């Protein structure tokens, strides 16, 4: 039991289990999954589908945080990516043509990659603290998105584009499949190559890594570029789901949810060892929390209070000070036992 509790994924999984249990008791139909028109439907599928954009961004964020960084600009990149795609689709003569949508998607991703290079440049070449470097794009990014959409909410009516956010493939929502593919890609990319090792090394001790010959500059840029890539895809899914690009609200606060998912998943904000699987669980915890609160009948936005409670609890649990307090308490208890035994 102790061994199990010491496992880094114990608390996130336990949290998820408790949330699901609450739902099971409160709503007996929660776990039922039906097949309608060959598609799967049910609360669980909703959780997966609604949580997929957060998960996509959290995947990139996990790697950034593992290098001791953070990326606040992902929400703005979502907005820009959605805006680029929608304005291209709207500008074309044939919005329903898959070719048009492909061009739009590729353009959106390409622009986001440039933004990722920009973030990485500020962090690794100019040496600006990540939180500050990405704050710039966080501030300006939504303005840029507005510029692209010319201040309008761009509603698109393009069946191929709509598939990204609300389509189904093989019975499952396309967005869930995309998130799964991205997740697998990240796992394979970092764990089948030595990228993961390098990222963790730089995050744990940049100086020791330098002495061991690790080249951190290119590594940092790639990580920010990958996060921007994740954000671009999440932005496309969100935009497609709403069938509209809204420069103000697409991906609003999603950076915070993504960071939260990473933290809940057991990756420390201090950098170093990361767990993509933990992040997956973290994203599910958040989305289940939101869904639960919603089904209970509390206004959805009040979930922020619960998120605050979760993030505080997780941080306090992770704090070195807490470990110290628990340790000293343990020691004192032990001492008392020995004293009692000897008395």
């Amino acid at each position, binding site marked *: 039991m102790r061994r199990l509790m010491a496992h880094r994924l114990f608390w996130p999984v336990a949290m998820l289990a408790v949330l699901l249990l609450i739902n099971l008791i409160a709503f007996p139909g929660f776990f039922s999954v039906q097949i309608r028109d060959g598609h799967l439907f049910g609360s669980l599928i909703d959780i997966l589908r609604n949580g997929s954009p957060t998960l996509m961004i959290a995947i990139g964020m996990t790697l950034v945080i593992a290098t001791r960084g*953070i990326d606040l600009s992902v929400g703005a990149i979502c907005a820009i990516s959605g805006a680029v795609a929608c304005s291209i689709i709207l500008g074309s003569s044939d919005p329903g043509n898959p070719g048009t949508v492909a061009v739009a998607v590729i353009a959106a991703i390409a622009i986001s990659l440039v933004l990722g290079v920009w973030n990485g440049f500020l962090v690794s070449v*100019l*040496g*600006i*603290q990540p*939180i*500050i*470097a990405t*704050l*710039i*794009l*966080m*501030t*300006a*990014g*939504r*303005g*840029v998105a*507005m*510029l692209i959409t*010319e*201040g309008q909410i761009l509603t698109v009516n393009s069946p191929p584009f709509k598939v990204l956010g609300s389509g189904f493939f093989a019975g499952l929502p396309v967005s869930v499949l995309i998130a799964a593919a991205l997740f697998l890609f990240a796992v394979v990319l970092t764990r089948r190559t030595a990228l993961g090792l390098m990222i963790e090394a730089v995050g744990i001790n940049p100086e020791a890594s330098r002495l061991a010959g690790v080249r951190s500059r290119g590594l940092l840029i790639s990580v920010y570029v990958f996060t921007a890539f994740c954000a671009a895809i999440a932005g496309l899914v969100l935009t497609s789901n709403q069938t509209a690009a809204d*420069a103000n609200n697409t991906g*609003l606060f999603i950076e*915070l949810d993504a*960071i939260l998912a990473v*933290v809940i998943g057991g990756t420390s*904000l201090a950098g170093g060892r990361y767990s993509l699987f933990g992040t997956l669980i973290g994203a599910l915890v958040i989305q289940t929390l939101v869904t639960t609160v919603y089904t209970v009948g509390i*206004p959805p*936005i*009040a*979930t*922020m*209070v*619960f*998120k*605050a*409670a979760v*993030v*505080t609890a997780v*941080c*306090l649990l992770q*704090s*070195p*000070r*807490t470990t110290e307090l628990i340790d000293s308490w343990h020691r004192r208890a032990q001492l008392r036992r020995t004293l009692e035994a000897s008395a």
Partner: protein
Amino acid sequence: MTVLAPAPRPAETPSRLGQVRNWLTNPKYGPVIVTAVLLVGMLVAGAFRYRGFTNPQVIANLFIDNAYLLVLAVGMTFVILTGGIDLSVGAVLAMSTMITASLLQSGWSPGVIIPLVLVLTSFLGLLVGLMIHYFQIQPFIATLAAMFLARGLCYVISNTTISIVDPVFVALAQTRIPILPRLSITPSVIIAIFVVAAAVFVLHYTRLGRTVYAIGGSEQSGVLMGLPVARTKVLVYVISGFCSGLAGVLYSFYTLSGYALTAIGTELDAIAAVVIGGTLLTGGYGFVLGSVLGVLVLGTIQTLITFDGNLTSWWTRIFIGALLLVFIILQKVLTARRV
């Protein structure tokens, strides 16, 4: 004649030039001077380009429209001077407007509500400060939790707009205090100026203020010099909480309503104002008056864009982002020169 070397210039000219260069390359004054020049430049450019910009009321309106932001920026200045950051200020401001509006609706007296709101937000700041100092949680994440909490509480109070009809609030919102013919300000401006003055006093004439700068310079040195680092570090978040609460009250004077989604992203404006005002994000350098300049720069950008009519309002964000970039790089360059 051409053979002759130019006559030696009077000695003070190069030294004065040198003096100017010294100021500009000094991380303490450089950014503030740049900001001041920028502000004057923008105002002069505005005066040349747009009719009606020369009206002194334009300047007064800068203060009227941004009184709440001034107060937020003051609190943020304290936090950033210690090397921290407070992401919760926008949400706490919104929470403050919500509490004020809903309590007024239930018939409480403004004389009770305002102190109560200030105590509550200061208390929230205290909790954040304790988390940051005693549990060594990064300011970023601790204030993020506070932001979630405050924003969530807004919705718990109400998810619709609550209008304020209390006569005292309405009076405070609508009163115009003439200071010159054709020039007037609001009571909020006076409160904001008072807060700024108090902050200047605290930062420059009390040991608390000096400790704030010391923590930003080097927390470890501060401890070794025997300064009350722990207490001060917690206190800056209390001050920021207080300022956010007060800014919320001023904001409810300004809008005469409480709304849960209000002031989203205001924390970014406050941070931008402080940075543009010359406070180093790593702490230790900066002035409250610089932050005032920063707020005025942001306000002027907004005003210029309004006057222009061709530029759309989203340019504001882009301009602010660009300015942030310029000032962050400027800070980087100036601190890198420091030995």
